[in-house]
């Protein structure tokens, strides 16, 4: 008896499904921004509800006729669910929309000011998006180019993985502005990277006694290990010892040189330091 009831119920459900004869045929895959035609079967009025990854479209349609989904209806990449509802019931089918070709690149470079002669000192990561801001996850060949007036040109071609292509490049030995390009599929984005001198490499100082009981101490042009003048503002610490004790003064480099007048009496010892660079200590006698 129970078995008969189950069979009867299955038949009723089967007939109910069969009575809603509407169906639809559409391509299993589409491209974002493209339009597709959907063939329907059945008869009468129905509503087509399109559930996209991040938008919703509702259209009144006539079953048995073909209707279209326009480019804007398919703007998101991802899985879509199309639901047809009519008085007879509901039918739902899914299809997938892939991103379109690259339309713009999000290009993130680091740092904006890079020290000279650094191994893998400049990094770039490019994310490619289509016209509808879908991240393109399929592999793309991305061309990176780093160029500057004195630095020459470095080029790398990288295949994107999981939507990103990244590159690490050595910074050149000469300071200056660099143009950092990323390009794929006819789309190009440029960033500017400033290459700046590194920390001071060595310090040379010289001093002369002044009449006012002070000693003028000056550095030679302060350079990094690649021979670039260190940027203005780099701090040099001068320390002097005399009969009165110790005097320490921090001075900023201006146009490559740091200079200070230290109060001194008698025998004076003076040294200077900046970053990891230490100047050779000098001795002199201050003018009384």
């Amino acid at each position, binding site marked *: 008896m129970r078995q008969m009831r189950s069979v009867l119920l299955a038949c009723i*459900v089967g007939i*109910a499904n069969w009575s809603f004869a509407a169906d639809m045929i559409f391509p299993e895959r589409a491209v974002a921004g493209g339009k597709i035609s959907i063939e329907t079967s059945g008869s009468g009025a129905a509503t087509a*509800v399109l*559930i996209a*990854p*991040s*938008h*919703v*479209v*509702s259209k009144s349609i006539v079953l048995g006729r073909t209707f279209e989904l326009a480019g804007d209806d398919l703007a*998101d*990449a*991802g*899985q879509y*669910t199309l*639901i047809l*509802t009519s008085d007879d*019931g*509901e039918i*739902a089918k899914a299809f*997938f929309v892939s*991103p379109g070709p690259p339309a713009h690149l999000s290009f*993130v470079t*680091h*740092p904006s000011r890079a020290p000279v002669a650094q191994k893998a000192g400049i*990094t770039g*990561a490019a*994310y490619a*998006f289509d016209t509808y*801001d*879908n*991240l393109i*996850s399929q592999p793309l060949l991305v061309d990176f180019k780093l160029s500057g007036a004195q630095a020459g040109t470095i080029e790398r071609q990288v295949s994107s*993985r*999981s*939507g*990103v292509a*990244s590159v*690490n490049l050595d910074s050149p030995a000469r300071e200056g502005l660099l143009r950092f390009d990323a390009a794929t599929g006819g789309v190009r984005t440029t960033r500017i990277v400033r290459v700046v001198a590194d920390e001071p490499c060595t310090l040379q100082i010289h001093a002369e006694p002044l009449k006012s009981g002070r000693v003028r101490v000056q550095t030679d042009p302060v350079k990094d290990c690649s021979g670039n003048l260190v940027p203005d503002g780099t701090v040099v610490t001068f320390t002097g010892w005399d009969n009165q004790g110790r005097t320490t003064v921090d001075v900023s480099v201006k146009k490559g040189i740091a200079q200070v007048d230290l109060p001194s009496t008698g025998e004076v010892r003076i040294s200077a330091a900046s970053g990891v660079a230490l100047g050779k200590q000098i001795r002199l006698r201050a003018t009384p």
Partner: protein
Amino acid sequence: MNYFRHRRTRVLLLVSIICAGAPAVCAPSVELSITGVGPRQMEPTLQQSIPRDYVKAWQILSTALEVRDAKLLDQYWVGVAHDKFQRLIDDESRTGIQVHYRDISHKLQAVFYPSDGAALLLYDNVQLEMKVLRSSRIIHTQKTNKRYLILMTPAQDRWVVRVLQEVPLS
């Protein structure tokens, strides 16, 4: 057919009521794998904050869709992802169609963490329940597995979702 639909509606309604009353009962499970992520290693604190913030972002999204309030998205969604879900909420108001998502589980796989630590790219294999309502009546329900490619970036005190891109299931 109607009998089944009404029964299904009642069950979903019951689940919604239970989840609203005790969110912990319905909190999605979340796993994060960091195998193969690079070039920078993910810091232990980040390994904790990413799953927490990502699940929170889904929770906010779910609520924003349910109450049709795009302002809520500002808390965990930015950029492209924010704009897209704002459009979805606008569409809901315009069409009278509502889409509710309930995330059941997330399996996160971190794939790219750049040396400056300014972004994190990861995949999520998510199990979702989707409900489509028209005039507050459920017209479609579906339990589905989806795979997303996600770009998260740091904000002041949290990581936020900048891109949430569905990709084919692999």
